[in-house]
């Protein structure tokens, strides 16, 4: 099949592209970022998804499947710019898909959609509303993109829609929110909190998306692999040292001492868990992860060893 991947130059995008190419699909990508050394057989168009040039790609390629991964998830980008990229990009995908006869559109979103709160249940299911926005309004664009993509399920029945809510990614590429958070030798935590984190090896994440291309499940799906693990164990198994700070100290230290400048709501995510029930996805696609949580953490540790001075 002809598969177009907006956001192909990201770490997961590259992984999905390689898997699909190896399975014999024709793979094309759209990304503003280059993919230097892109392998043979994968054609990249360095254009902005929201611009006219991207539509030309749809017209020229006539993809059968689109895997939309061109979203900005890190919070360092300014909010209004993120809003434009994430919602504008998703809208462009929906409109071009309709106009150019795409058969299947996959939207790759995040499990942070559900939000982290002291009174939220463990293991969210897909029918739950996004309750975390009140404490973490900066996630509004991701939530809105997810819901907008989901509306394609009834607005555009001419193509199959899969909306994926992926758990965190971890692995030797060091990509993603969790991989970035535990990168340093000392990882700050909030005293008295040890939330569960659900993550999947980057190779399994790419496989889960490739399986979605193959099985074409219609609907909204949580995607996860191994069971979640408390943050303290992630820190230990990746060879780091936890530095537990009282919450007021942690808040005051953000943006200083090498800590990222995060919005206050982000602290909820290191106080309370977001765990998802991925049984519907497993049932619809037969997907089972290959790499367990311990090996995932150890792969990360080997790729980013802590050098003792």
């Amino acid at each position, binding site marked *: 099949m002809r598969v177009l991947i907006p956001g192909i130059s990201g770490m997961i995008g590259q992984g999905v592209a390689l898997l699909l190419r190896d399975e014999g699909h024709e793979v094309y990508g759209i990304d503003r970022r280059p993919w230097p050394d892109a392998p043979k057989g994968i054609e990249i168009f360095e254009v902005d998804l929201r611009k006219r040039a991207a539509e030309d790609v749809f017209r020229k390629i006539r993809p059968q499947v689109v895997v939309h991964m061109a979203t900005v998830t890190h919070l360092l980008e300014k909010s209004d710019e993120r809003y434009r990229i994430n919602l504008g990009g998703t809208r462009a995908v929906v409109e071009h898909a309709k106009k150019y006869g795409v058969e299947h559109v996959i939207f790759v979103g995040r499990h942070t959609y559900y939000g982290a709160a002291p009174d939220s249940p463990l293991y969210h299911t897909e029918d739950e509303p996004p309750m975390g926005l009140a404490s973490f309004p900066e996630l509004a664009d991701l939530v809105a993109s997810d819901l907008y993509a989901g509306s394609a399920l009834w607005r555009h029945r001419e193509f199959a829609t899969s909306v994926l809510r992926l758990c965190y990614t971890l692995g030797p590429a060091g990509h993603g929110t969790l991989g970035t958070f535990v990168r340093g030798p000392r990882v700050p935590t909030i005293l008295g909190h*040890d939330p569960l984190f659900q993550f999947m090896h980057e190779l399994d994440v790419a496989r889960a998306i490739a399986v979605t291309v193959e099985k074409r499940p219609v609907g909204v799906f949580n995607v996860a692999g191994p069971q979640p693990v408390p943050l303290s164990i992630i820190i230990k198994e990746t060879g780091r040292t936890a530095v537990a700070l009282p919450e007021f100290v942690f808040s005051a230290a953000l943006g200083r001492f090498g800590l990222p400048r995060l919005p206050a709501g982000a602290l909820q995510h290191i106080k309370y868990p977001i765990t998802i029930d991925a049984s519907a996805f497993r049932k619809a696609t037969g997907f089972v992860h290959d790499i367990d949580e*311990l090996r995932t953490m150890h792969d990360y540790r080997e790729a980013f060893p802590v050098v003792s001075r």
Partner: protein
Amino acid sequence: MQIPVDAEVQRRVMELEVPFNESGVDPYGLSRAHLAQSMTLLKLAYRHYFKVEVHGMENVPARGRAMIVGNHSGGFALDAGCVIASTFFEMNPPRLAQGMAEKFIAKFPIAAMWATRAGQLTGLPENAARLLEDDRLLMVFPEGARGTAKLYKERYSLVNFGTGFMRLALRTRSPIVPMAFLGGGEAVPTVFNAVSLGKLLGVPYIPVTPWLFAIPLPVQLDVYYGEPIQFEGDGSEEDDVVNGYVEQVKERIAAMLEVGRRRRKGEA
């Protein structure tokens, strides 16, 4: 801080039929190492501080889903501690009774963390249903915080039971093991509940005893387990039906409380 783990506790923790991963954590965040530390402390209270007598332990199923449904007695969750200790120390192989902690606890750092690590999740219907579907042993106090707020003179009474637990039992086809707990009122004889002070501290109330603080006395505590009851239905029944089922459970608990009360007074 590491608490040295008792040898019996260590052996029993290893015998628990819980799907721990290689790091010793289950899918709900229950941690084998932290559970062992908590149980070591609980053992001190259960075996040495209080005099606890357990009756009808054989009524708690050895395996499979079940709900222990009981009364509250005492200004705070002494009853839950006794249920957890009894299924852990008296059953072979041991079972972990998992409670539904009051929601306010989830907001407190450290307390919430230890509750999760010891297998006590936040009291939400979704969490309860999931534990039962996983064939765990759930512990429910349908009186809620109103139950622990009973005063000394009300110690053998039951306040209103909610119906949520019964619909959950029906929906998940879980047997109910009625449980009666006696002695909490003597251990923590609440004469007054300081509600305003409690609100200030973020809890529903603070129990006040004749010696001001709710430090429990080392008294005798009794735990009675009744025969399991399996109710028929799917949880979508009319309120009348469900209330009738709830009444049956409440009557069984009240009857066990009466037996226990007489026994404690030295009557037959």
